[in-house]
């Protein structure tokens, strides 16, 4: 009989564990970030821990989902988006603290199966030729409706005059991360993917990966903004500042993200 | 006294009768007459729209005051047609289920006692699926008796059993009732069973009481045509009321005058019916010393003879009677002794005491 009682006591304390957990900030502020900058941010937070001894918790998802969660009460302290539209949306709704800061600029990369396009300075031209020639069966982009990398891809194709043909073999992924997944596993000939994620998935090993200059997709900004959220505390602000430092800039660029076009006035170093 | 008054729509019931305490009473009627519903209402398993049920001045149901004592608070035992034994318990545990007020050890002992009382002490560890019909019935009986109820309700308790088991159990029921001094109310469609076991009888048809009273009374003197039909009285004839005097009532049946000892003193509204038990119609032998003491004597022609085991049913038509067939029961020996055969003419006697007048 005594065994039963201790068993139940242990069970009780174990099961109520999650209810004891103090508010979300006990283990460091939660930083919500777009999935496409995952590798960069993971390295950054590890470095931050090394340097300052502080830690942050990272949650990744698509910018849209995260923004929606924030609006519905998610306990995030800082939001790193891959799509400025969502940041602006949050600002308009009053869910932010302070002014958004551009932390990096996204880089659109063109991935192609080995040997398909050959070594070329103008991959989009080569792509156009391949489309004409019918050697492309499947082309992946993220959804241009709401993914910035998707609309950049579409702009690039339109600018190169090959959008109409591309549509015939187009496969639309739900988000940029999924585009990378298709490129990795699917029977895909060409994919427009975010460079950081492509590098993480090591697409350069399975095919040809080439960054596209921002002129290739005019009128589309791949600026990535971050903004403090109402729950941000001192610790969050410190991390926020760190993300704008030279250190961070270097780590971002190593993961395939460009420097922000403008130097933000909030830069502290 | 067990007082039962029920008015209900579905199932349709309109009954009002009282039964004496400590006796074995039967509710008899064809299927669909509402007998089971009455029993369930008494048990507290049915809540009629209007009802007043009390047992020995203890009110169990009273719709006027909105009082309804739940079944489990009534001191009764109930054996249903299909016994309702708990399939997951042994026979002893089934009986023990009625003894939840006792601690476990005593429960087992009491259960065993009652199983022995009904004659199946050795089957205590069997499950209902391992018992025969008769054995299951006894377990159900033991379970109903275990709490020493003051009222025992039985719903066609023997109908699912074979003939010999039925006979045996009827005897045991009588014995138990004597031994435990309970009031027993049982429901049956079998008139013979009711006649054999009960001291009081209630005839039910289409949810209404046709007649009620001491069994012997009912069996001898049905009050209405309906009652007579329900009790399978073979003889039923229509007559006219003629006269009433100190010796009885005179009726005209066809061309003859019949005399009944008891009946309405003044001319009733509408026709009057009469009946007589087949065993009360006598065959008049030639050379009878005092024929006038037998009652009204009529000539009749034999139309049919049916031999049924130890008795013979003879159908006759009285020559000057009202035209209805009369039936009498004879011993097989009498048949041959008096040369009764189809087509032959015999004389029958209708006794004034045996003639029962019925309202329609």
């Amino acid at each position, binding site marked *: 009989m005594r065994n039963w009682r201790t068993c139940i006591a242990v069970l009780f304390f174990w*099961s109520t564990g999650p209810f004891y957990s103090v508010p979300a900030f006990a283990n460091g502020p939660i930083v919500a970030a777009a999935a496409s900058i995952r590798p960069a941010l993971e390295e950054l937070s590890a470095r931050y821990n090394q340097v300052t001894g502080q830690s942050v*918790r990272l949650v990744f998802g698509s910018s849209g989902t995260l923004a*929606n969660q924030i609006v519905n009460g998610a306990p995030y302290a800082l939001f790193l988006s891959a799509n400025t539209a969502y940041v602006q949306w949050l600002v308009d709704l009053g869910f932010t603290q302070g002014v958004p800061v551009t932390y990096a600029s996204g880089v659109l990369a063109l991935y192609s199966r080995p040997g398909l396009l050959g070594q070329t300075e103008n991959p989009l031209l080569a792509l156009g030729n391949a489309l004409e020639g019918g050697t492309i069966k499947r082309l992946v982009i993220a959804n241009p409706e709401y993914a910035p990398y998707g609309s950049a891809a579409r702009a690039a194709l339109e600018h190169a005059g090959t959008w109409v043909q591309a549509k015939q073999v187009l496969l639309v992924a739900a988000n940029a991360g999924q585009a990378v997944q298709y490129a990795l596993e699917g029977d895909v000939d060409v994919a427009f993917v975010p460079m950081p994620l492509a590098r993480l998935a090591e697409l350069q090993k399975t095919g040809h990966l080439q960054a596209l200059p921002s002129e290739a997709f005019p009128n589309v900004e791949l600026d990535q903004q971050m903004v403090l959220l109402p729950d941000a505390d001192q610790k969050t602000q410190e991390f926020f500042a760190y993300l704008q430092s030279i250190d961070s800039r270097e780590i971002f660029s190593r993961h395939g993200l460009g420097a922000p076009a403008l130097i933000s006035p909030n830069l502290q170093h | 006294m067990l007082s039962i008054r029920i008015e209900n729509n579905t199932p349709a019931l309109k009954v009002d009768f009282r039964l004496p305490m400590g006796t074995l009473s039967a509710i008899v009627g064809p299927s669909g007459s509402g007998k089971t519903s009455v029993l369930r209402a008494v048990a507290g398993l049915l809540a009629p729209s209007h009802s007043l049920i009390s047992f020995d001045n203890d009110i169990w149901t009273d719709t006027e005051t909105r009082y309804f004592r739940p079944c489990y608070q009534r001191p009764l035992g109930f054996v249903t047609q299909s016994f309702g034994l708990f399939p997951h318990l042994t026979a002893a545990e089934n009986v023990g289920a*009625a003894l*939840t007020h006792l601690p476990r050890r005593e429960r087992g002992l009491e259960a065993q006692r009652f199983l022995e009382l009904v004659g199946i002490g050795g089957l205590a560890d069997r*499950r209902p699926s391992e018992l025969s019909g008769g054995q299951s019935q006894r377990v159900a009986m033991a379970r109903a008796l275990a709490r020493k109820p003051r009222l025992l309700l039985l719903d066609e308790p023997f109908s699912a059993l074979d003939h010999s088991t039925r006979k045996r159990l009827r005897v045991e029921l009588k014995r138990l009732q004597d031994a435990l001094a309970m009031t027993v109310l049982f429901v049956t469609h079998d008139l013979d069973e009711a006649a054999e076991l009960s001291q009081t009888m209630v005839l039910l048809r289409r949810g209404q009481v046709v007649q009620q009273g001491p069994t012997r009374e009912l069996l001898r003197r049905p009050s209405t045509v309906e009652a007579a039909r329900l009790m399978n009285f073979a003889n039923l004839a229509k007559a006219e009321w003629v006269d009433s005097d100190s010796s009885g009532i005179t009726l005209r049946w066809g061309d003859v005058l019949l005399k009944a000892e008891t009946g309405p003193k003044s001319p009733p509204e509408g026709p009057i019916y009469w009946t007589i038990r087949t065993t009360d119609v006598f065959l008049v032998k030639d050379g009878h010393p005092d024929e006038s003491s037998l009652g009204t004597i009529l000539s009749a022609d034999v139309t049919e003879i049916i031999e049924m085991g130890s008795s013979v049913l003879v159908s006759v038509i009285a020559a000057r009677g009202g035209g209805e067939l009369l039936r009498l029961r004879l011993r097989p020996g009498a048949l041959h002794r008096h040369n009764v055969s189809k087509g032959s003419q015999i004389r029958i006697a209708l006794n004034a005491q045996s003639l029962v007048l019925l309202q329609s």
Partner: protein
Amino acid sequence: MDWNAFNLSLQLAAWTLALLLPIGVVTGRWLARTQTLARPWLQAFFALPLVLPPTVVGYYLLIFTGTRSPLGELIMSWFGVSLVFSFPGLVVASILVNLPFAILPVQRAFEVVSSELYDAAACCAMTPWQTFTRVEMPLAWPGVLSAAVLTLGHTLGEFGVVLMVGGNIPGETRTLSIAIFDRVQAFDPLAAGQMAGFLLLISLVTVALGYGVLEKRDQRKRRSA
């Protein structure tokens, strides 16, 4: 292997079971015994989570119980907890999504208990509670066990609702299934596969044990019949 996430999954399953089983038993039993005309509608209502995509359920839970909603605000002011992005929120969502698994098998099991037995129990002077514990439950427990096993298995693998309502907060709402998804997103198929294999094993063993108990009972019944 994210043991934290596994622990969280277990805790979620434990709480869901503890709270949902009584609800399932009460509701299933009531559905089995009631005569109301609305019965088919009620059954359909409780079966809804089976046909609705879990992400849809999660999304509407987010909208209706999130901190922006009146209900969410009420709960926050009364209890000081939020039902979104928190473990309590996961428990609530999990209970809702598992309703059909907890109610349907129980309902079927209680339907088998004939009204004749209820009458007999009442005539044995058994109070309604005694009838429940000594007659109904012994006859209906396989259904309850079935409900428990299904709920457990389903909760361990629950993903859509948990993701929507809980987010992916490590240590709080990152259950094992979410952790697996997280690893997939991070292009770490090895870790994902490892955890998925583990989850599969646990679920298989649990469900098999549950059905094993039922098997043994059937065997016992067959032998004694």
